[in-house]
């Protein structure tokens, strides 16, 4: 089965429409005004799904589908969000039971199941609308647990030969509150292939299986950056978020705080081309300066001096080389990057020009969203890589799936090479 950006755009529209239907029904049910703030489309391996649950308590409402994409649709809330929905939106007090497996009483379960079912229905109606087809759904079942299995089922069986699941993450804001939920769709392979075949445009596209290349790009990019940071600063770094989102370009800045941030931005050119930006909060920028210059920042809280800015730029430069080398390894291509652009401003203002640059040629974008942090340090770095779609499709189409397998078996990039100069230096 083949994918292209047009098909993925259709997926996104279905998810957005589904989230809006869900929000509308929530309004009808509760009388509370709601609106959809964000809808993201993610591609996930079984392992990613597992990581998403992260040992935290969740509840889910699942239904099986007949028609359209087939398979299974599951609405998942974190337990805290589920409680908030029950208490705020449904104006019921959650039954006073301790946190844990059995912390949702019968009343709560039935309220959440009802809500989850309404939301599943909303999504499925959204899909049926866009696909112009009928989709039947089974009766809903409620599940709770702190890992994927009790809620999603056997992941290997669910993701099957495709390796990747589609997940839609939406956030709905209600007056005075806001809550998030995840919507997993594990489509039936054949039904999905038929659906896709009917919605592709004339372009060549790429095989669904090659989406696994995305997963390797996410993985390698994050690993190389974490290694670079460790090598430069001695911080013990960990990867906190590793995600690939497919979103309308206008929603890219919404995901970044409007708080003041320090950033280093690059354009990159090759297979693929695009933009890469590293964002730090001020305490993280101060940690970097202290680690690199062996002295605290000299500024009086009003920005950094020239030497400090150069240090941050160079730090960004080395991270950019690591990140893009990781991608180039997976894709078997060369990617050059620009000199660093230092910026210190409101976070969303820093990223909107990049969303705009990309948005001049395309309606949707893949956003590689990575966050690394350091144990015992006030260090947190958000990384956003936004490739342009044309070259990315080409790069994926040219990708030999065997290469991907080899890349995944390779040991991670040795530390002593991570800080090496980029291909354009």
């Amino acid at each position, binding site marked *: 089965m083949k994918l292209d950006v047009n098909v993925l755009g259709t997926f996104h529209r279905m998810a957005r429409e589904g989230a809006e239907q869900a929000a509308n029904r929530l309004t009808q049910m509760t009388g509370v005004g709601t609106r959809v703030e964000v809808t993201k489309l993610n591609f996930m391996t079984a392992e990613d799904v597992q990581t998403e649950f992260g040992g935290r308590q969740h509840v889910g409402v699942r239904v099986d589908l007949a028609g359209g994409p087939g398979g299974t649709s599951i609405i998942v809330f974190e337990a805290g969000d589920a409680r908030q929905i029950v208490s705020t939106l449904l104006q019921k007090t959650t039954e006073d039971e301790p946190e844990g497996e059995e912390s949702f009483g019968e009343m709560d379960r039935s309220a959440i199941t009802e809500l989850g079912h309404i939301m599943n229905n909303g999504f499925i109606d959204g899909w049926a609308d866009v696909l112009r087809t009928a989709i039947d759904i089974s009766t809903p079942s409620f599940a709770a647990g702190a890992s994927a299995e009790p809620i999603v089922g056997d992941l290997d069986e669910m993701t099957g030969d495709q390796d990747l699941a589609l997940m839609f993450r939406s956030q709905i804001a209600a*007056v*005075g509150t806001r809550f998030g939920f995840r919507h997993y769709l594990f489509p039936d392979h054949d039904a999905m292939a038929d659906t896709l075949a009917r919605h592709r445009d004339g372009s060549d596209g790429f095989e669904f299986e090659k989406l696994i290349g995305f997963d390797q790009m996410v993985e390698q990019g994050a690993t190389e950056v974490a290694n670079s940071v460790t090598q430069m600063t001695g911080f013990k770094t960990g990867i906190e978020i590793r995600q690939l989102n497919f979103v*309308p370009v206008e929603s890219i800045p919404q995901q970044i705080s409007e708080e003041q941030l320090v950033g280093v*931005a690059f354009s990159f050119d090759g297979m693929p081309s695009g933009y890469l930006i590293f964002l730090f909060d001020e305490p993280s920028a101060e940690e970097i300066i202290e680690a690199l210059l062996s002295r605290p920042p000299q500024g009086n809280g009003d920005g950094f001096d020239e030497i400090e800015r150069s240090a941050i730029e160079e730090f960004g430069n080395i991270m950019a080389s690591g990140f893009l080398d990781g991608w180039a390894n997976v894709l078997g291509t060369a990617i050059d990057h620009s000199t660093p652009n230092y910026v210190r401003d*409101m*976070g969303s203002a820093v990223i909107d*020009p990049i969303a*705009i640059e990309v948005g*001049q040629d395309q309606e949707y974008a893949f956003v590689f969203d990575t966050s690394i942090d350091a144990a015992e340090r006030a260090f947190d770095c958000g990384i956003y890589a936004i490739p342009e779609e044309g070259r990315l499709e080409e790069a994926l189409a040219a990708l030999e799936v065997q290469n991907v397998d080899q890349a995944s078996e390779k040991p991670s990039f040795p530390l002593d090479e991570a800080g090496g100069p980029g291909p354009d230096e």
Partner: protein
Amino acid sequence: MTAIKEGFAPNRDEILQVGIAEFAVTDEGQPFACYGLGSCVAIAMYDRSESIGGLAHVMLPSAAEIDGGQDAKFADTGCRRLFAELRALGAASKRVEAKLAGGSEMFEFEGIASDVGKRNVAAAKATLAELNVPIEAEAVGGNHGRSIVLDTASGTLAVKTANSEMRTI
């Protein structure tokens, strides 16, 4: 009436954030805000005598340049849509005035003409001129971000940058 999306109940106690490619209009005095404008432009329009106001958060100059996207994604269609929605709420064409904010150039990438902030502002101005809507004030250009809050009844626009105190225009 206040509308970004149908079904979203107005709430005067809370400032309503207008995201990129969204617009909102009201005759109920609800304040609207755009946070962290970089090269995007906030277009505020209001008819003071009727206490009707609206805000659009646009990201690109012209709808003719790219397929797809809502009216408020583009400066030209965004201005026209906002004007039409204010008229529908009872604003008188000849009393509608506008203010603009945003349109900065945050970066200079090698080999890329990053002048889209300027082009956004130019497109908004050209469309407002076509609509005969005078621009009462503006806080545009430069190389820094801005957050703004519009008092929809009076047309007062509060503008804040990362390194400055809030001022009103």
